[in-house]
C-alpha cells in the first residue's frame, strides 16, 4: 500500500480535501469519502457513464480518473445542479419528459447533457444522440432522454433571450 496523499479540489463550488492512495479513483473518493453518492458505478470500464462528472469543463468518467489528478480542479456532480432550491432545467426536463425509470444512470445522464448544452445550446436530435452515446441506460429506450435534453435546451435558451 502506497503512501497517502492529500488532494484538494473544488466540489460543486466548495473546497474539499481528501487523503488518498495514488491509485484511488475519483468515483471512490466522491462516493466513499466525500459522501457524494449521486454518481454511480456501473461498469468500471468507462462504457456506461453512470459515474460521469464534469471536471474542469469536461465530461469525464470518474471511474477511470485518479483522484490525485484532480488537484486544484473544479468538479461538478449531480449534487451541484439544484441551486437555492431551484431545479436545473435538465433535472426538470428529465422529470417532465419521463427520461428515467430506475434512476441509476440519471445523474450521469444529466451531468453529460449539461456539458452538451454548454457546448451546443441547441443541438439536433442526432447531435444529442451522439453526445449521449457514452451514457448507457437499460430502462428508457433513450427517446425520452432526448426529449428531456430538448426540453432543457428550449428552457435555457428562452431564459437567455
Amino acid at each position: 500500500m502506497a503512501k497517502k496523499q492529500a488532494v484538494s479540489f473544488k466540489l460543486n463550488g466548495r473546497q474539499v480535501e481528501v487523503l488518498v492512495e495514488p491509485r484511488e479513483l475519483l468515483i471512490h473518493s466522491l462516493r466513499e469519502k466525500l459522501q457524494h453518492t449521486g454518481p454511480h458505478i456501473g461498469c468500471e470500464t468507462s462504457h456506461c457513464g453512470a459515474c460521469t462528472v464534469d471536471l474542469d469543463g469536461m465530461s469525464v468518467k470518474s471511474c477511470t480518473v485518479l483522484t490525485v489528478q484532480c488537484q486544484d480542479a473544479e468538479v461538478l456532480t449531480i449534487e451541484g445542479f439544484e441551486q437555492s432550491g431551484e431545479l436545473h432545467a435538465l433535472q426538470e426536463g428529465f422529470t417532465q419528459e419521463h427520461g428515467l425509470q430506475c434512476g441509476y444512470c440519471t445523474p450521469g445522464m444529466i451531468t453529460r447533457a449539461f456539458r452538451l448544452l454548454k457546448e451546443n445550446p441547441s443541438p439536433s436530435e442526432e447531435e444529442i444522440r451522439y453526445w449521449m452515446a457514452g451514457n448507457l441506460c437499460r430502462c428508457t429506450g433513450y427517446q425520452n432522454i432526448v426529449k428531456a435534453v430538448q426540453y432543457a435546451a428550449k428552457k435555457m435558451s428562452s431564459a437567455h433571450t
Partner: protein
Amino acid sequence: MAGSTDTIEREKKLQGLGSSRLRKEDARFIRGKGSYIDDIKLPGMLFGAMVRSPYAHARIKSINKAKALAVPGVVAVLVAEDLKPVKLDWMPTLGSDVQAVLADKKVCFQMQEVAMVIASDRYSAADGADMVEVDYEELPAIVDPHKSMAPGAPVIREDIAGKDEVGHGKRTHPNHIFTWEAGDKAATDAVFAGAAVTVREEILNPRVHPCPMETCGCVASFDKVTGQLTVYITSQAPHLVRTVVAMLSGIPESKIRIIGGDIGGGFGNKVPIYPGYVVAIVASIVTGVPIKWIESRIDNISTTGFARDYHGVGELAADKDGRIKALRFTALADHGAFNSHVSATKLPAGLFSICTGSYDIPKAYCRVDAVYTNKAPGGVAYRCSLRVTEAVYLIERMIDVLAQKLSIDKAEIRRRNFVSADKFPYNTSLGWTIDSGNYQAALEKVLKAVDYEGLRREQVQKRAKGELMGIGVCTFTEIVGAGPTKVCDILGIGLFDSCDIRVNPTGSAIARLGTMSQGQGHATTYAQIIATELGLSSDEIQIEEGDTDKAPYGAGTWGSRSTPVGGAAAAMAARKIRAKAQKIAAHLLEVGEGDLEWEVDRFKVKGNPAQARTMKEIAMAAHTSNLPDGMEKGLDATEYYDPPNMTFPFGAYVCVVDIDRFTGETKVRRFYALDDCGTRINPMIIEGQIHGGLTEAFAVAFGQAIPFDENGNHLGNSLMDYFLPTAVETPHWETDHTVTPSPHHPIGAKGVAESPHVGGIPCFSNAVVDAFAHLGVTHMDMPHTAFRVWQQCKALGISTR
C-alpha cells in the same frame, strides 16, 4: 347540486387511473439522492471481495490463505470449510436444486465463487483476493449442451450424481436435470403424420444477460446481542429472500429484516439468491460487523442470472391454406452448473407452454430437457415470465416459416389462425385459459398505420433492384401475473401478493405492498389505483415496498406481476376500506347504506347530492367517537390477493429494416408497436416501459450473446464486449394501443413491461429474415450482427458487386 364540471375537476385533482401524472419517485433520482445498495454505509462496515475460479471445471486441491491474511486491512478469508460450522456451505436454489455457496472441493464454472476476502475497504479486499492461492487440477469441461448427456460425458455435479431426482422429476443421466412436457404427444404426432403441410426449423435463443445498470450486492449486518439480521439487498423479491435466509441460517424469519431500497434495474437478474449475499451474511455473523459485497460488472455478467440458452426445434402442421392443425416444440435447455433458474415448482419450464401464441391451434405438444454444463447458473426469465420469450420467439418465427413455404402473406397467415374475438375466454390446447383478447383488431390497426400494403409494394420494387428490405410482423400473446397459487409457487410458497393500506385521520394514506420496484414507477402507479378507489389524491398516497419489516408478504416484482397481482391487491384493499367508509357515511348522514352512492371522492345521498360526506371527512370520523355502534376505529385494510388466473396482454408489432448487402449492416427504419395491456393506469409510464422493453429486445436481436470457448472460458463479460445499445443505434419507437380489459382483474389491468421484449425480439428477427425470404432463406439465428448478416449475404452470393 354537483355538476359534471365539478366531478371532472375532482377527478383531475385525484390524478388517478388513466392520468399521465409525473412520477413521484423522480424527485430523489434527479438529485442523485436515490439509495442504491452501494450507497448504504453502516458504522464499522467491512468490505468483501470474491476470489473466483479461472477454470470452468477443476478440482480444488488446496487453498492457502496466509499471504492474503498478511495484506494490510484484510480481516478474514472465508472458504467453503468456514461456512460448514454455520451450515451455510450449500444453499437451496429457486429451481429446486442445491448450490455450493463457495466451491466445495470442486469448481463447476469459470468465475465460480471460491473464497471471500473481508477487509477494511474495497481496495484492501481486492488486494487480498489477489493473494489467495488456490491449487486447481483442471478437469475436462462441457460447454455444448448437446454433448452433455453423451455416454461417458464428465459428471459435472458429483454431489448429486447418484440422485435420480432434483425436484422436477426423473433424471436419466448424471448431467440431466429434468424433462418437462405439456400437451398431447400422441394426438399431435397423429396430426403431423396426416398433415398436408409440415415445416420444421432449429431455432436458438442464445444465452444472454439482462445486465441492469446497477450490479448485484448487499450489506449484511448481524447484531450478536439481539440476534437480529438486517440485509440491504438488490432483490426483486425481498420476502422470498427472507424465507430462504431463514431456511438456510436457522435464524427465525421474524429476526431477519430484508431491505430492498432503490434498485438500479432488475429485469430478472435480481430474483435469485447469489452466493455473495450468503457469504456476506456469514461474514457478518463471524465478524460481528456489517459486511458490504458489491459485484463488479465482470462478476455480474459472468456469474449472475443469465437468460435463455434454449436450443429449440419448432414444427407446425397445417392445411394447404395455412390453417395450423398442430404444433410440436421441443427445447434443450442449458441451465449451467446448478439449476438455479427461477421457476415455479409445479412448472419447471411451464410458461414455455404459451407457445400456441395468439393462434387457435387444436393440438400441441411441447417438451423441455434441461441439462447441466460447465457454465454459470441462474438462468432467469429475462424481462419475461418463466420462458415466455423463448416460446413466443419459436411460434412467431415458425408462423413466418409456414407462410413462406405456402407463399401466403405474413399478415394474412396470422389472420387465418387468430383466436377470434368471440372465443374468449379461450382454452388453449396446452391447458391455459386466455382471459380476453382482440388480436385481429390490433393487427389491422397496425397494418393501416404503417401502410403495410404500400410497404410490401415498395419491397417488391427494391427486390427488383437487388436491395434488401425486410418487413417483420409479430402478433404475440403474453402470459403475466404469476400467479394463481394453485399452479405457481416458489419453494412451496404461493405466488400471491399483498397490500396493506392505512388511511390517516386527515385523509392521507400509506400503502405497503409485497412487490418491489426496480424502476417501474410503482410509487406512482399504485397511488393512482388507490386514489381512484378511495377518492383521495394520489399526491397524498405514500407507497412503500421492499422492507420486510413493514410490507406484508408478497412474491416481489418479476414477470410483469406487479400490476396484475400487486395492483389487484391494492384495489381490493382499497375496496374494503371504501365498504367501511360507506357504513360510516351512512351513520353520519343518518341514512341507510343503500341510500348512498359513490362519486369520485364522496358518498352522496341518492336524489339529494348536497347531502354528502367526502372521504377526507370520513377518514377523520373513523378516528373519532362518532362511529356506528361496535365499529372498530380506524380506516385500514389488508388484502392478500391470489389471482384466479394469469392475465394475457397482447400486441401487434411491425418492423421495417433495410440491409446493406455489402456490409451486412441492418438499419431499423421503422418500428411500430401496438400493445394491449387492458386498463391503462398511467399512459406515460406504460409508454416508457414499452420504449425500454423494445430497446432491450433490439439489443437481444441485434447484438447480445454470451460466447464460450471449448474450455468454458467466458469470452465477453464486460461492457467492452457485451452489447448494450447506446442512444445512437437505438431506433425510434412508435407506440399505439387498444384496450381489452381482463375480465377477472379488479380494474381490468394486465401488466405490460415485458410485452415489448417478448414481442419485439421475434419482430426484429422476422424483419431480418423477411429481407432474405425471396432468396429462399427461412431462418437465421440471432443475434443479427452485421458480421453474421454479411455471412448470409456471402453464402447467397449477393455480397459483391
